[in-house]
């Protein structure tokens, strides 16, 4: 975007910025993501380090929320048991659109160490809700979570808002040709 750079070096006359409404909206959306943290296992412990001052997750513009109705995205950090999967589904459905999901750690990506003998573990949270960003690791380092956050921001900032169906149809058409 480079929107902020323009403030240092404005056009003649000053204070004029050029950009599409979509760019500005997406810039705002991607830089102020509020999240619902769904901590289930040791990944949530690692996420505490991520949230603390050393790695400072809030500099990405994220604010932890305790209600799904105020959250832009949900973070699934840990082992999703079948018992908990139903609760996650309910929370996901309570979130307002547009909403995103970040799956952190091997367990919520694919079942992790419980993939074979875990009779009680859902083998990947993507079996019940759509996942936008997967962060691998067991548990992932905070750096990996940061990259996941950057990926999510990039995804949001490139999203179509206007003429969405028309533009998505074009993309679908291109994918079909491939």
């Amino acid at each position, binding site marked *: 975007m480079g929107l902020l750079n323009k403030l240092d070096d404005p056009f003649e006359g000053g204070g004029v910025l050029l950009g599409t409404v979509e760019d500005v909206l997406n810039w705002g959306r991607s830089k102020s993501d509020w999240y619902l943290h769904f901590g289930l296992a040791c990944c949530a412990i690692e996420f505490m380090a991520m949230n603390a001052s050393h790695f400072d997750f809030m500099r990405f513009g994220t604010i932890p929320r305790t209600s799904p109705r105020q959250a832009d995205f949900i973070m699934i950090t840990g082992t999703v048991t*079948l*018992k908990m*999967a*139903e609760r996650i589904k309910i929370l996901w459905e309570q979130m307002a659109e547009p909403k995103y999901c970040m799956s952190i750690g091997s367990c919520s990506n*694919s*079942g992790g160490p419980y*993939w*074979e*003998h875990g*009779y*009680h573990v*859902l*083998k990947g949270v993507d*079996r*019940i809700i759509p996942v936008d960003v997967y962060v691998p690791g067991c548990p992932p380092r905070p750096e990996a979570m940061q990259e996941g956050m950057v990926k999510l921001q990039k995804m949001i900032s490139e999203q179509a808002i206007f003429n969405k169906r028309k533009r998505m149809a074009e993309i679908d058409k291109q994918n079909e040709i491939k």
Partner: protein
Amino acid sequence: MQTEKIFDTLTKKFGNDVTPILEAAPSEPFILVKADKIYDVCLFLRDNSELDFDYMMCLTGVHQKPDLGVVYHLYSIKHKHKIVLKTFVSIDAPNVPTVERIWRSADWHEREAWDMYGINFEGHHNLIRILCPYDWEGFPLRKDYVTPEEYHGMRVPY
């Protein structure tokens, strides 16, 4: 008190209902108790002033084919001695008297043993599943347990 002495006290009191096993390497010595006597033995262990087992460290189930078993780890805070009790029941009628009224901590431990092994603790006031969902079928830690294909529309195998 030494483990041998505790075992002697128990054999004097309960006779053939208990069988001390002193050389049980690699595990520590334990005493086998008949399932229907477990309440009396536990009550004696707690209330006898020389034994005074006031703390139940752990109660767990075990599936030792072909039988189901319950293992009790007891400790006396006052005398600083401990003891292991074991009892085995047939898998077709896994009924063991509850010790929930002797040690309150047995409440959830027995619920867990019921949840995982299906051991029926007779007289327990609230014997329902504690870890698995209430409508779960089967007892997961039994050797012959088969992982379900589906639960509430979610596929379970990888």
